[in-house]
């Protein structure tokens, strides 16, 4: 059983995984704030009506704005986006977590769903 590392020690990174920590929370604040606003229907409609103006209202960084424009989920995460908030943005486009999983892993949605099903082997 591994022992917890000392505070401040840097554990080995986990491949394909970004921990949403203080650095990410600071970096991603504007993007996550915009996504949080989508809890309200009128804000979702305002985004769809004029995406550029809506993003400007939340002062997205250029990196965040570009990732949103390109619907680039990994880019949004690199720009500090947190998946729980990004899921609200994805919902505006009618995308669920399988669609988002496929986008991030470079698979088709069907292949991603099969990948999920394949985990069931041996259980």
């Amino acid at each position, binding site marked *: 059983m591994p022992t917890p*590392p000392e505070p401040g020690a840097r554990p080995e990174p*986990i491949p394909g995984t970004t921990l949403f*920590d203080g650095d990410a929370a600071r970096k991603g604040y504007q993007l996550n704030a915009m996504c949080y606003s989508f809890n309200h*229907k009128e804000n*979702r409609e305002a985004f769809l009506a004029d995406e550029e103006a809506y993003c400007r209202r939340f002062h997205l960084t250029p990196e965040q704005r570009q990732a949103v424009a390109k619907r680039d989920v990994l880019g949004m*995460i690199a720009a500090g986006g947190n998946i729980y908030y990004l899921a609200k943005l994805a919902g505006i486009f009618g995308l669920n977590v399988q669609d*988002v999983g496929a986008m*991030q892993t470079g698979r088709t949605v069907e292949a991603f769903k099969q990948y*999920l099903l394949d985990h069931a082997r041996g259980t």
Partner: protein
Amino acid sequence: MAEIIGGYFTSHVPAIGGAIHRGDQQTPYWKPFFDGFPKVHEWLAKMKPDVAVVFSNDHGLNFFLDKMPTFAVGAAAEYQNEDEGWGLPLYRPFKGHPELSWHVIEQLVADEIDPLTCQQMLVDHAISIPIELAYPSVAEWPVRLVPIGINTVQHPLPSARRCLALGRSVHKALASWSGAERIVVIGTGGLSHQLDGERAGFMNPDYDRFCLDHLASDPDALTKHSIHDMVRLAGTQGVEVLNWIAARGALGPGAREIHRNYHLPISNTAAATVLLEPA
């Protein structure tokens, strides 16, 4: 004296709500998950709890990153569910039990575990789905809530050891409550899953089995892993098992498993449903 009748643990994947709404419970995809619930319904009908102490994590409905509490205790007379961004049907409000909430808060602070206290709190799918799964098609929720939130969103997260200590302190509060309530403790979320990054879709049945096999008999075994190890083993959102660990602590020192159902995948998640009784 109040009685802690047992613990109910289940996943809270939003897609479960969609399946319930569409009536998909008996379709081939969903049946293996919903097959875990007749036993839960029987047990609740027999045990008749009237209060539920629920450990869960908010997903950006009640808390944003402007204020992110590590632990939060609801102390409201009523809890509303609201739109989480997807425009899904809302769940009926839940009645609270503010007197018991404040009793829990007093105990936590006495034990030097200092939570945020919330006289207003929205509850998201992490509470509404497990309650709906437990009580399908009831006219009125039979339990009043004491919701306890754990930050599983923004690192640093509280350690598993700390979450177990939180739960054990809640147990002291429940055990010393002078009312006649019948209390069920609930842990929601998990098990292994990861929604974000190139590793999206990750699940780990071996780690899930380790958690399930030790939850009743030796919950301290689950606290040996650091949060970083838990992310590695369970996925970025699999750390929601912290809610289960805290709820296990609230159940009391001894417990035995009376029911377990494990099935994957449900959406992107390895889903489990467990009942424990005090032993």
